[in-house]
């Protein structure tokens, strides 16, 4: 890297990060949304990147980024792969795109979130393994909402009673858990709640209940605007051709 003479008003910054999204801009440039460890989600101008030739600037590749300038649109000055690309395939790839969409939709710009960054890296890594992606997605969603300040209290009801494994609860947004006398379509068992919190979600019922809860919360915090990546999970069904 050639060193650029440092002017007092030009600030140069370096950070490790991931590419979330890239939008073509002007002739050969792009606007890139990156998620960095030290600066959170950040939009940069990447010049000349759409020229033919390889670039490590792809989603799910750990990157080392450098940019200069502050204000509305800093310029990306250097990008290098900082590790092996995490190869996501099939459903895991949809999950990865879902995580990126969540971050773009929910994370404020330039607000460092080291815990979410670590969780993102860890979740992507788990998605590259062949296990069921459901549980890691739930833990990431929970971590993200907590980091954004929408802290969910899952070990006590809103009135302060400890959650009991064999009881049933309903989660009211901006209020907390309410015990319900019998399970309903929307309720969660105490065991699901503690499994979600302790990262031990295991059986179908727990996964289904946790998914319903997180889906409802994310729907609420994304102002009800649907997430495009969800459509990928529904395979278009083809009615069989007449014999």
């Amino acid at each position, binding site marked *: 890297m050639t060193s650029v003479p440092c002017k007092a008003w030009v600030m140069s910054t370096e950070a490790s990060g991931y590419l*979330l*999204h890239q*939008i*073509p801009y*002007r*002739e*050969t440039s792009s606007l890139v949304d990156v998620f960095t460890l030290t600066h959170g989600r950040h939009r940069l101008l990447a010049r000349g990147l759409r020229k033919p030739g*390889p*670039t*490590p600037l*792809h*989603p*799910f*590749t750990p990157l080392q980024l450098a940019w200069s300038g502050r204000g509305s649109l800093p310029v990306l000055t250097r990008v290098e*792969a900082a590790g*092996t*690309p995490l*190869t*996501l*395939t*099939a459903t895991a*790839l*949809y999950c*990865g*795109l*879902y995580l*990126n*969409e969540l971050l*773009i939709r929910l994370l404020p710009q330039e607000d460092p979130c080291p815990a979410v960054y670590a969780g993102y890296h860890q979740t992507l890594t788990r998605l590259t393994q062949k296990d069921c992606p459901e549980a890691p997605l739930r833990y990431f969603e929970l971590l993200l909402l907590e980091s954004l300040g929408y802290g969910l209290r899952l070990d006590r009801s809103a009135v302060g009673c400890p959650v009991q494994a064999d009881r049933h609860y309903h989660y009211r947004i901006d209020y907390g858990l309410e015990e319900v006398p019998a399970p309903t379509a929307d309720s969660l068992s105490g065991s699901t709640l503690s499994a979600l919190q302790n990262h031990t979600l295991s059986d179908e019922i727990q996964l289904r209940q946790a998914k319903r809860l997180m889906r409802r919360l994310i729907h609420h915090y994304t102002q009800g605007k649907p*997430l*495009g*990546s969800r*459509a*990928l999970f*529904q*395979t*278009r*069904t*083809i009615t*069989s*051709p007449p014999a």
Partner: protein
Amino acid sequence: MQVPGVLGQLMHALRCLPGVGPRSAQRMAFQLLLRDRDGARRLAETLLLALDRIGHCGDCRTLSEDPRCRLCADPGRDRSELCIVESPAEVMAITQATGFRGLFFVLNGKLSPLDGMGPAQLRLDVLESRLKSGEIREVILATSTTVEGEATAHYLSQMIRQVGIEVSRIAYGVPFGGELEYVDGTTLAHAFKGRQTF
């Protein structure tokens, strides 16, 4: 600075072309109005004609003047093989480079949730009726080797397998004649993962 009048309007209109910013738009406008007025008139007329006459082929969705494009109407093509690509430009590239004798389907895009491109935007209903026609035995997915191209390929493969048609995906690879040392890490990782028995 905003240029007033029709000149300003023209410069603004030219900026709908990919890669044309205010400066190139100004250069183009002056070229057309000062140095090549005949060319400008021809361009304007051809553009209108093209807009009126060119639509999408009803079979493959590529750009076509006829309801069915020349390639789809050619009786010499192998109708049992279908290659799915992202854009009309790739139809030409694949035909010229590979000598592929089958038919094509053009998505005119790829799945990219953050850009508002979902399954509903890709006219998969047209693809579906092609698949149901019963003449296709093999589908070759030739979407780009980007994350979005990969997601598109996976989505299509899930959809196509339901009707029992064989699906394959073009290989990721090291560029021909390339020294491994100079190949970027992502390409090399994919090529390594997709290695073949030798």
